[in-house]
Structure formats: structure tokens, C-alpha cells
């Protein structure tokens, strides 16, 4: 289950230059939602939009391409996208909801469908769940500390953040690039991430991340019948350029390696929690 169930996997990027400009990687999320919106496959999508504070995401229900574009790019701190899941069907009146999120958020979406305890009339309205790969996440204050204290950049001057090649990168509007080893960021990670057993959004309809694909491209797993259908239609409509994953470097081996590392490390944490105290342990949510 390291990479989850999937029907196909490719390297891809959006064919739309406008989307690619502000996208984190291959613009898969923004492009696929834009296509689904245009085709009526979704009525809107819950994405991590901008807020009043720099780099602090605010979940929004995007019902236009402009709103999708405004939400492009990775914010390495918490965007509680699932908080809008029921609201999207109420105040926004969506019958077909798109949602993007980390693997844990995809887990929340599937739990909401199978155990809709506080999600009246929501289960059938999830039309497209796009998952992003995720090693860990940070609180807003952590990102502030990482960028301002360690990278020595003002948050508001940063135009892009990235994690790759063992480093955390902050790019600024004046062209400066700050990078620090990931080692430094570890202590700032969100504790809840240390019990997380999914790297590549196993439960999404389509999941994507940068790892495995060349710069500017994304690795894309198509996982469910719903995902397969949308993806095939989007390809047929010319939304994406694709490459066989076997032909790109570093390819699936790296994805598998990182996924295995994450799951093994976090499983150890879970095991250690069981005997954290003296004759007492901490909760395991997976039992």
C-alpha cells in the first residue's frame, strides 16, 4: 500500500502557459479543476486561497477559473480545506464538489463519505478529490520561523516556497534564493504529521506531486473510476502534455523510496506512542 491503488501513473504538465506561470509544479491541480469546472464535472472546488496574511492560506470555494488561478502554488502550512466541505453544498449550493488536499485531507473526505456522521447529504456530492503528495506540514508560525529566522527573508517578499533536493527553498520577488537544509525544518513540523501513513494521497481520485518528475513537471497517479474518467477526458481535450513515467528521471523509484521512508518512520512513532508513559501509552487512531 506504499503507493496505494492506482490505474495509471504518468509525468504531466498543463498545456496552459498562464496556469503554469504561478503553479507549483506542472499545474495539474489548477488545470484539472479548471477543465472539470468548464465541463460541468464540478460546480466548484475547495482550494487554498490567499488570505490577509502573507502565505497563510484560507480555504475558499472557487467557482471561476480566476479564483483557481489565485489559489495556485504550495503553501507549506495548514489550510483546513475540509472545513468547507459541507458549507460548499450549503451556502454555495454546489451539487458537484471538487476538493484538493493533503493525504490526510483525502482520508477525511473518504471517512466523510463512508461515515457521514456530521456530513448530511455530502457523501454523494464529492465529484473530484485531488490529492497532493505530502511529507509533512507546518503551522503558520513554523513557516514564519523558517522563512524569517532561518532563511532571513520577509514572508511578504517571498514569491515561492519549495521543498526538494533535501532543502527548503524560498524565492523572493527581488530574485534572491534562500535555502536551508531540511534538517533545520524538522523540529518545526506539525506533530500530527508524525503519525501519518500516506505520502501520495492513496485515497484521492487523482493524486499529484513534484517528486519523480523533472522540474516544472508533476507525477500523476490516476486512482479511481471517477479519476480515470476525468483524466481521460482532460487528456483528450488537450489539457496536458504527458510523458511515460518510465522515461523520466528520477521516476517512480524515488517516489517509492520517499513514501516508504515516510511510512516506516511514522509507523515507528505510532509504535513508540503505545509505550510512551510508564505502563501507559498514547492513542492510536488507526486501531
Amino acid at each position, binding site marked *: *500500500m506504499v503507493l496505494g491503488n492506482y490505474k495509471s501513473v504518468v509525468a504531466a504538465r498543463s498545456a496552459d502557459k498562464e496556469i503554469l506561470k504561478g503553479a507549483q509544479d506542472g499545474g495539474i491541480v489548477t488545470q484539472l479543476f479548471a477543465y472539470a469546472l468548464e465541463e460541468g464535472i464540478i460546480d466548484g472546488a475547495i482550494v487554498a486561497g490567499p488570505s490577509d496574511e502573507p502565505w497563510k492560506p484560507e480555504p475558499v470555494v472557487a467557482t471561476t477559473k480566476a479564483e483557481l488561478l489565485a489559489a495556485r502554488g504550495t503553501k507549506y502550512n*495548514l489550510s483546513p480545506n475540509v472545513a*468547507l466541505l459541507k458549507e460548499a453544498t450549503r451556502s454555495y449550493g454546489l451539487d458537484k464538489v471538487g476538493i484538493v488536499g493533503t493525504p490526510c*485531507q483525502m482520508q477525511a473526505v473518504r*471517512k466523510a*463519505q463512508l461515515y457521514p456522521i*456530521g456530513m448530511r447529504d455530502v*457523501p454523494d456530492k464529492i465529484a473530484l478529490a485531488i490529492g497532493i503528495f505530502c511529507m509533512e506540514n507546518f503551522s503558520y508560525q513554523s513557516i514564519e520561523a523558517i522563512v524569517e529566522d532561518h532563511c532571513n527573508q520577509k514572508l511578504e517578499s517571498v514569491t515561492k516556497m519549495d521543498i526538494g533536493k533535501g532543502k527548503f527553498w524560498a524565492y523572493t520577488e527581488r530574485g534572491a534564493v534562500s535555502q536551508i537544509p531540511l534538517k533545520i525544518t524538522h523540529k518545526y513540523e506539525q506533530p*500530527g504529521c508524525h503519525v501519518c501513513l500516506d505520502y501520495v494521497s492513496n485515497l484521492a481520485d487523482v493524486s499529484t506531486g513534484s517528486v519523480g518528475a523533472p522540474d516544472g513537471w508533476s507525477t500523476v497517479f490516476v486512482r479511481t473510476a471517477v479519476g480515470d474518467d476525468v483524466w481521460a477526458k482532460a487528456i483528450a481535450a488537450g489539457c496536458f502534455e504527458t510523458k511515460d513515467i518510465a522515461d523520466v528521471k528520477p521516476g517512480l523509484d524515488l517516489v517509492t523510496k520517499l513514501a516508504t521512508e515516510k511510512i516506516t518512520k511514522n509507523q515507528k512513532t505510532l509504535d513508540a506512542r503505545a509505550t510512551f508513559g510508564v505502563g501507559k501509552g498514547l492513542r492510536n487512531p488507526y*486501531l
Partner: protein
Amino acid sequence: MVEKITVGHVHLSGCTGCLVSFADNYEGLFKILDNYAELVYALTLVDVRHVPEMDVALVEGSVCLQDKSSVDEIKETREKAKVVVALGGCAAYGNITRFARGGQWNQPQMESYVPIGELIDVDLYIPGCAPTPQQIRNVAIMAYLLLKGTDEQKELATAYLKPLMDLAKRGDEACGCDLMYDVINQGLCMGCGTCAAACPVRAITIEYGKPNVDRDLCIKCGACYAQCPRSFFNFDVMNEFEGITELIKGVME
């Protein structure tokens, strides 16, 4: 068609919202009643005046300690039903009735309301105010598979129902504070926002990625904690979401 399971709706101190939710499955309700479940007891719907023997009792509402007939009825339900389900926040956790203090026209002496778990053992909880039509439907289908299905179906139904049975063992008090105690204080919250979506009274907002509960608003329905992916998450069931969704759809067609 294999024989149906027998189901009853036992109505204690609740607002009938749980029953309405059950009915809000619309055609689905008829499908359930036609093929899978015989409704053997339900005020206003079934002309039976006394709690009969049944497979599954769906109990709505809390027990008023000053109302002898309520106390008798919950005890009798436990004796006559194989499986007792606390349907909704009041039966499971007391919910809004926790705040009752008597003095209400026309029974001012009635002031103590407790969730059914304070008087009897309960097998399974369906939290929420109101519980959702889809959650009631899923439990009904799984209960049917558990009692009448093939071995494989029994296994699936057992895995599905286990967390809801564990909730019944966990206790009969719940509120937004459980997120604090059992998720955040335990180092498990990852800021997904699900709890805020689940709360029927919007008592939860997400501040800087973590839930903040307005305890004056919380009615103690238990939905937020039960819906949180870090309260329970059974990989066996959730990884099969596509198959199970299809199964439920197929069963309801």
C-alpha cells in the same frame, strides 16, 4: 430474497429529528423497508403499543428519570432487542437535553435527562444532531449484512461497524472538548478542518489551522469528534471506499 431483519424505532426524549432523518432517505427508506428491514415498532408509523422482540432497536432521545414509562421502555428495549443503537446525540450523549433543568410546562417536575448508556449497555452509537440520513442508511445496510449476509459480507460489516461500537464503549459524554482531550492533547490533530464542517451549530472555527470550540454554543452532539479522521480511521474499510460506495449504491437501487 432472504428474510429481513426486524427493526424498531424507540422514541424517548428527543425532537423526532432522528426519525425525520431516517425518513429523509426518501425512496431509499422504502427500499430498506421493502427489502431489508421490517419495521416492527415506531410511534405513529406502526400500530404496535408495546416494545416487541426485535433485531435492532434504534433509540432516539435521552431518558427522563422522572418519567416512569421512559425508564421502563429503555429497560425493556435492552431486554428485547439483540442490538441497541443510540440514534443521535440525545440517546448517545444527552445532547441538548443535558441542559434541561425542569420547570417546563406541562411537566415542570421533569428535570433529569440522561443518555441511554447511563441505564443500559448500548451496542452502537450514531452520533450527531440530527444523525444524517446517509449514516443511518449505512448502518442499516451493514446491520443487515452482519445478520443475514455471506461470510465475506459479515466480515465487511463487522469492520465497518466496529468503530461505532467502540464509540458506545468509550462513554456517554461528548462535546467539542473531546477534540482537545483526545486529538490535540494527544498530538494527533493535523488541521484538516473536518470537525468544523461536522458541527451542526457552527461552534467550531479553525484558528491558525487548529479547531477552536465555542463551548457556549456546543450542544454535545458528538459529531465533531466522531467525524475527525484522527478519532478513528480503519484502513480496512476506508481503503475500500470505492467498492463499499458501489455496494451501498447497488443495494439501494
